[in-house]
């Protein structure tokens, strides 16, 4: 019983973190976009924000895919959700290609926004680790 309580608390905490990560990614990219607009130009800021938005959408899609993989039992289901996610990835790659071909000077700004998820995930991992250390102590 106690074990179940601990597990459900852990699960709800995980769910909370997973739900807030997309908001944090978008918030960070918005902040970076504002900074980039001041340092460079508004166009650069918009590309950073667009990269952050794409990263947010990518994480939401990933979350949905993984939830399906973990809930469903059959291997066929894994392939189906894998294919759906692969098609979404193709869409993301197409967006990158459009930017490379038509706005190649702004690709680093877009990549910076798209990579903002790396910073957010590192921050969340550190926060979870510090919380675990507190529980241990």
């Amino acid at each position, binding site marked *: 019983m106690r074990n179940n309580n601990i597990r459900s608390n852990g699960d709800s905490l995980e769910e909370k973190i997973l739900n807030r990560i997309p908001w944090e990614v978008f918030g960070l990219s918005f902040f970076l976009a504002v900074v980039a607009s001041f340092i460079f130009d508004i166009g650069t800021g918009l590309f950073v924000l667009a990269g952050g938005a794409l990263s947010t959408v*990518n994480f939401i899609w990933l979350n949905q895919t993984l939830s399906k993989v973990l809930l469903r039992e059959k*291997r066929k289901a894994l392939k189906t959700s894998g294919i759906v996610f692969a098609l979404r990835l193709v869409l993301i*790659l197409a967006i990158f290609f459009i930017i490379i071909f038509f706005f190649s000077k702004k690709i680093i700004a877009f990549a910076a926004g798209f990579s903002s998820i790396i910073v957010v995930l590192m921050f969340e991992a550190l926060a979870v680790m510090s919380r675990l250390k507190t529980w241990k102590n």
Partner: protein
Amino acid sequence: MMAMSSLGLMLPSSIAVGLFLGYILDKALGTRPWMLIVFFLFGAASGIYNFLRGLNKLQEDKEKDEIENEEQ
């Protein structure tokens, strides 16, 4: 959470590294945008490959856990 984080990091980090290398090489060699395209493709391919491998491993771990639970 761990799986989500590692899978979530794979694609953006691979693409970012590929784009960065491509951008630097393009600047150095004056071949814009070809190096950018080539290294972006390398990054995307490695990201997708690692993502699919991670997804497969996750599913295998899940199946192993289920078998162990059934045995108990």
